[in-house]
């Protein structure tokens, strides 16, 4: 860990707001510290170890060049990984350019001529692929098709890549990202966009990429609690679900906004090497938690190949479904959710509660529940594999996919509804479904865990109090009783399992019709934990399981919530209006679907990104205060 460069920590507002200059100075200090720290992990005596990010860094800095040349050749002799090879290779070519010699370039050139990388099957793959081929084709601007793996000339590759990249920006800023709000897959998005920001020579594409990078970072900043990406996620791995600070987003939060502690991460390194400096406004948005707020977002599922369903919509000829995100953000916690259902393949986190920690590394500061679901229906909805093989093939890399113990999953039998600090989950699991139970994760870092005779389970996480009321009583199990997580999904996902994966418990409740209430509160709002317990126990609450799960609950502030599985929930008798859900809506960000425009706000500063014409307008209005 590096000290002295991350002066803005967590949610505690500074005594006086930092000036833009102070923010920029601190960012540059962290940037330099990250590069310095990253360099220390290079072992120049070990020619067998070190990835392309390290190679790029050493070429960029002019350090350990013999080692870098050796590793460059080793990693380029028989490339694998498709776009995951392409983008750090492009980083090497651009950032390392001052120290690449003719022989290095010959090795690199031959790889681009002969290695035919797969374009991938999801948005982050496509963005990395096209950003990389674009930038590579700018380095060699006039080569014929015979000099490229795909037979297209440099000009053809640039034209196709630019067209894709601009179209992906148009779709995302109008309808939201399909692979939305992923704490670990923010890495490839930031990496690819930052490469374009840092090195693209085409002014239009470079400018749009910079705007898009700001959009991505804003998306994280508004659902940021102490540097952790909170709320509902399209894709998350067990490691990051259980210990959120291990995700790439937290490494970026330290570099960009000084939150938490330094972690070495590829996308953070690319930001550091690119010369990109984030607008100070983003740091204010990411760190100002002086007032609780509701933030809503409209996102969408990945494109659905098959079984899109009657509620699917078509965008640019492709089918998808709306995702309604809702987050409640305070200085002490972030409770966030989506509406449930099959919104993403394999790795969906429908809702989560994350409490603030100044130094979250090593802590499991999260609470969530799910129905562990898998099916060929879900697999074939998003992938081209056959009905009878798709689950098996998915589980080759996502080994917990068809496990009853898994900790992230979408389910077509789940409906979630949130109003501020209260969340209701309802389940209607048909007979014959493989796992008719709910897994609710209880971290080892919770305190005061109490099972009350009333059926409520209470606990404290950081400065947040948690009340959880399962409709059907369950039993406690350890999280690691199957050992699945220890072996799953490749070493980078499962490494350090004993540190992050053990000591937690899961509350398993089994019933075809089921549900729960979650009520979160800030500890400061009560005289004691006991006072919170008593207050929650006194709240009006009714539920039934037949014919479908239904619940009525009055929250701590007196709001009356009602939800019935399969119906639109109500708040004080008014139906939630999903049809009017905004692309962004909260105190820090507003955007209307289909407009390709987003407005960032903090204090008296307003910044409007207009992706239609590429304009950026920043205004300061002292009358707003």
């Amino acid at each position, binding site marked *: 860990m590096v000290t002295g460069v991350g002066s803005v920590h967590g949610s505690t507002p500074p005594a006086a707001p930092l000036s833009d200059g102070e923010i920029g100075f601190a960012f540059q200090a962290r940037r330099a510290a990250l590069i310095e720290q990253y360099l220390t992990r290079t072992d120049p005596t070990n020619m067998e170890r070190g990835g392309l990010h390290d190679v790029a860094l050493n070429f960029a800095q002019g350090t350990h060049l013999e080692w870098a040349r050796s590793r460059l050749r080793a990693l380029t002799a028989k490339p694998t990984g498709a776009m995951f090879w392409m983008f750090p290779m492009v980083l090497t070519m651009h950032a390392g350019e001052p120290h690449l010699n003719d022989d290095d370039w010959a090795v690199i050139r031959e790889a681009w001529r002969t290695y*035919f990388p*797969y374009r991938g099957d999801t948005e982050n793959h*496509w963005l990395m692929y096209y950003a990389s081929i674009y930038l590579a084709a700018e380095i060699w601007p006039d080569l014929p098709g015979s000099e490229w793996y*795909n037979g*297209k000339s440099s000009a053809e590759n640039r034209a*196709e890549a630019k067209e894709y990249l601009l179209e992906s920006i148009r779709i995302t800023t109008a309808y939201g990202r399909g692979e939305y709000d992923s704490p670990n897959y923010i890495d490839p998005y930031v990496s690819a966009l930052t490469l374009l920001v840092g090195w693209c020579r085409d002014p239009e594409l470079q400018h749009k990429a910079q705007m898009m990078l700001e959009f991505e970072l804003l998306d994280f900043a508004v659902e940021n609690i102490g540097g952790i990406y909170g709320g509902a996620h399209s894709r998350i791995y067990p490691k990051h679900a259980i210990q959120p600070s291990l995700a790439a987003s937290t490494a970026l939060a330290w570099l960009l906004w000084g939150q938490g502690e330094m972690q070495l991460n590829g996308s953070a390194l690319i930001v550091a090497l690119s010369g990109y400096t984030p607008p100070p406004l983003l740091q204010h948005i990411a760190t100002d938690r002086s007032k609780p707020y509701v933030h809503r977002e409209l996102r969408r599922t990945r*494109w659905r*190949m*098959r079984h899109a369903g009657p509620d699917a919509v078509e965008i640019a000829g492709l089918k998808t479904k709306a995702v309604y995100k809702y987050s409640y953000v305070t200085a002490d916690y972030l409770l966030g959710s989506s509406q449930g259902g099959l919104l993403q393949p394999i790795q969906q986190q429908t809702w989560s509660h994350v409490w603030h920690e100044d130094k979250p590394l090593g802590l499991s500061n999260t609470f969530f529940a799910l129905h562990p679901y898998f099916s060929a229906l879900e697999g074939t909805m998003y992938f081209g594999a056959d009905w009878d093989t798709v689950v098996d093939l998915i589980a080759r890399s996502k080994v917990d996919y068809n496990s009853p113990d898994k900790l992230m999953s979408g389910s077509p039998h789940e409906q979630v509804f949130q109003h501020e600090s209260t969340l209701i989950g309802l389940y209607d699991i048909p007979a014959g479904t493989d796992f008719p139970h709910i897994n609710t994760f209880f971290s080892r870092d919770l305190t005061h865990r109490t099972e009350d005779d009333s059926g409520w389970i209470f606990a404290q996480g950081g400065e947040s109090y948690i009340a959880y009321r399962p409709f059907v009583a369950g039993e406690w199990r350890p999280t690691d009783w199957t050992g699945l997580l220890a*072996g799953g999904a490749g070493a980078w996902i499962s490494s350090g399992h004993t540190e992050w994966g053990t000591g937690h418990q899961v509350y398993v409740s089994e019933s075809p019709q089921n549900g729960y209430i979650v009520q979160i509160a800030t500890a400061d709002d009560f005289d004691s934990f006991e006072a919170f317990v008593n207050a929650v126990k006194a709240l009006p609450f009714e539920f039934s399981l037949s014919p479908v799960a239904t619940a009525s609950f009055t929250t701590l502030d007196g709001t009356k919530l009602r939800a019935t599985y399969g119906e639109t929930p109500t708040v004080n008798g008014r139906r939630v209006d999903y049809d009017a859900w905004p692309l962004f809506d909260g105190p820090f960000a507003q955007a209307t679907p289909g407009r390709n425009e987003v407005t960032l706000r903090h204090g008296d500063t307003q910044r409007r990104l207009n992706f239609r014409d590429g304009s950026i307008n920043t205004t300061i209005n002292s009358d707003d205060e």
Partner: protein
Amino acid sequence: MMLTTIRTLLALGLTGSIAFAQPESVLFTAAAFTKAQKNSSIPTDAGIFIHLPDKGWTPYGPKIQQVASASVDPSDSSRIFLACGNGIVRSTDGGQSWRMVTDWRVSDVTAIVIDPTDGKNVYAASGWGLVRSLDGGDSWESINTGIDERFSKTITLDPRNPSRLLVGTGGGLFESTNRGNKWRRIKAVPAGHVLRLRHGNAKSGVWLAVTEGHGAWLSTNSGKTWQPTAPSAGDANLYACAVDPQNAQNLAVGGWAVGVLTSTDGGKTWQQRSEGLPSPNVLTLAYDPNNPGKLWAASFEEGTVWSQDAGATWQDGGLDGALTNDLGFLTLADNTR
């Protein structure tokens, strides 16, 4: 003579652009080796493999992660098309060089057919629908008018009328009589997923379609009318079918947990022919056009087998560990002269 040429090329390390003394129908598969895939989403090997008499299965063409099928222009065997996850990759020199001829709009391509009377007309099925080129593959356009469930793994062209196409989609069997401009569903076949379409030689008029849970369907008038066939396959997911190009009385269907069923009387009767198969989960089937009655079958990750007696006995054909997306015969050209 042919074997000598192959051996020479192999000795020169030119396995990526194998050529033949004369255009030759060669068994091929588009496969991914998934059996050894552990803790990874990437197969240990993948691409097009052709079966050479003296070498067995040999990689062919560019090494690409996701290849679903390959097709050769019937009127010009130097023109080869690969159906890939990246799009469509084409060679116009018999496999000496390759070019990705589609852009970012086309991906997850599953099957390609080429007009035997005019090689400029090329049609492709994909996970996102159908595309067409009328200039030999230089440019492509979407052709999905009339189709809602666009996911498609199979497309075929009427050899008697090249303007007529049939395609199996997630929503049933569709026909176009105007080169894909418009499609209409063939309602005799249920509206479920049609997974594979095959036909015999033009004269026979015999066509087979197999489905996901809705049985096998037979046409004896080039796909104009259809009747259910192979009833013992029940409601299994049938991934494979084949019609012997030399004798359309020989038919085969295969699927998950049902192995292979064959008929030698044009579909009047069917025999269960799973004994001796390495697995009952059959994904692809093909009759050898050079060897009447010889049937190849590939099962999920358990390799290929072949039979010369309509499936009564099976011989090991190699390729253990592969998931075969397609199995068939390519007429590969001599391009060394």
